[in-house]
């Protein structure tokens, strides 16, 4: 019963990126976000991914690329054959799977720039 699935994650910062592979304890129907949360809790707490609601597809913050396609990590299913997760290619990389997806007018930098 203790099946595992391989999850390859593109990680790093704009200065240096690298690929890392994780063995995820697999259960039927689990999401890519489930797998990323498992990594964070049990394998590597430094893995960065932006999300707020958990698997509810409500906050729309967990956009990533799964197997080359832009999707939400919380609705994409982990496949037993293995998957690859990368940050959004069209956004500036912050770290690991986190990209610069905060609304431009509501960042600290923009508020500091506009303050008296």
């Amino acid at each position, binding site marked *: 019963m203790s099946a595992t699935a391989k999850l390859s994650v593109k990680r790093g910062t704009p200065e240096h990126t690298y690929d890392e592979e994780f063995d995820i304890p697999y259960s039927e*129907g*689990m999401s890519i976000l489930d797998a990323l949360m498992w990594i964070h809790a049990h394998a590597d707490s430094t893995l*960065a991914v932006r999300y707020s609601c958990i698997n509810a597809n*409500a906050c729309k913050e967990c956009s990533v690329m799964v197997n080359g396609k832009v999707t939400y990590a919380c609705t994409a299913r982990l496949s037993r054959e293995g998957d690859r997760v990368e940050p959004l290619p069209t956004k500036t990389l*912050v770290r690991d799977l986190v990209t610069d997806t905060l609304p431009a007018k*509501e*960042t600290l930098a923009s508020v500091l720039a506009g303050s008296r």
Partner: protein
Amino acid sequence: MPHLDADVLVIGAGAAGMYAAIAAANAGADVLLVDKSIVGRGGATIMAQMTVAAALNQDGDDGWLKHHRDTLKAGRGLCNEELSEILCKEAPDRIRELDAWKVGWARREDGKINGVMAPGHSVPRCVYVDFLNTGPAVARTMRVKVSRTKGVRRVSGLSVREIVVHEGRAIGAVAVNVDDGQVVTIAAKAVVMAAGGLTKLFRRNSASANMGGDAYAIALRAGASLLDMEFPQFFPIGHLAPRLVGMDPIMWDPFRYKLGGRLLNGNMDEFLENYGFSDGGKYTATRDETAYAIVRENEAGRGSPAGGAYLSFTHVPEAELRRAFGPVIDLLAENGIDLTQNAVEVAPIAHYHMGGIRVDGEMATDVPGLYAAGEAVGGANGANRLSGNAIPEAFVFGERAGRFAAAMAAGRALVWEEAAAAPALALIGEIDARAEAGGTGPTATIGELWFEVQEMMWEKVGLMRDEASLTAALERLREIRTNDLATVPLSPGHAHNTTVEDWFDLRNAVEVAECIALAALNRRESRGAHQRLDYTATDPEFDRNQVLRLSGTEIVADWVPVVHTDTSLEEVA
């Protein structure tokens, strides 16, 4: 170091925080609205799927007094009636205001806003947005409203570490920009804490990632009192199996509102009646009653295979399912769930917190200049929240907190005292130095610690507690606070450093977990959401609220009489 000034700083941007920002700005204040996540996207609001209770009285059979009576009954004698009265009285105004902002409340055929029945309510009064879209619709509507309100500046991705207190008064905050680690100080004439919610402390929860108890811990350290911390609410029928993604686990609630459904044990028998509760396929048993019965059935070996109960809609015709929930039926099909063929499994799940920061009717805390709003506030819902009262609480208390904070700010000069911010800045510096010195390779120690806290809170401080389990939890929580947090490895880097964020989150979580466990230990009775295995009866001796404060680094408890008002005694037609 960058610095920002504001008349009113609002921390947390769910419905309560956004309402506070709008109300404060409309009262003339210059507002800074900040959130750890994205404004209007994080927190609990966006997860709300259906019910918002308000006595709109469209058919002449309802009124705020009646809504209040239902709220008090659910609250099991512990509601702060000043607050619950405000909640019920002002909810209809806020619902109509949201309607004017075009939130899209579901309508009846006569064009009026549709109100449905929900457990514990004496008349149908719970409004919603189809399909299962209440929270997202509210969040989107308020996000647009906030962005169009003159005088509100918004910062997403900003984590407030501490409220700064000078001469007993809240004067601002110290915060960190998560994506680049930039530290910023904020001076404000008044501060509104609206980052409530703590259900992430429990393994099974319906929380957002940022609901780890920040509001309570930060307010406690600022000198505020916390009320009724022993009362996290467990939603009885959270989704358990089969695995379901793309939907919030509390989604069966609206299904039961509209379609009833049958709750069955592992033998496919109805069981709530065996505990003296009434349900009969109509969804009338209250949350604490249902949660209790499911746990007891499992203890008796009559649970469903995954450890919960079955919820069945197999008797409901497919056409009716589709009429009630349209696209949701397709989403369920994608998850391999066909309600016409099979029952699903459900089980209790941590869902809401009745307790919180102690405030007066103006939402002012014990700390001058500090206000609270939404789920961060304790008292309005007593020992058990009536379904549908959380979203109106966010609206009503948010609006009031913003309005009264702005009024307070209008009469004051801005004060900033760097020395008062020094301890918070020093801690940020200390943790940063620890992280930068780290680099011992990949590790999951902080993640494992978080996981341990969630497991422990679920097992020892969850639905069923006793002196032994609570004492053991308290001991370990104190050890984590003093030992583990001091030594847990962190990793370097300022770009979205998850280990550093986890450290500050966990610091708050452990402090709040200790509050819950301590308060639960002190309340030697069972009442509402607080169920003690060693004190199973409700004891009139405990018709009191428990207040926690920080004394040095120690949490101290005290008891205060319940706040009663005259109207709660009036006859309701």
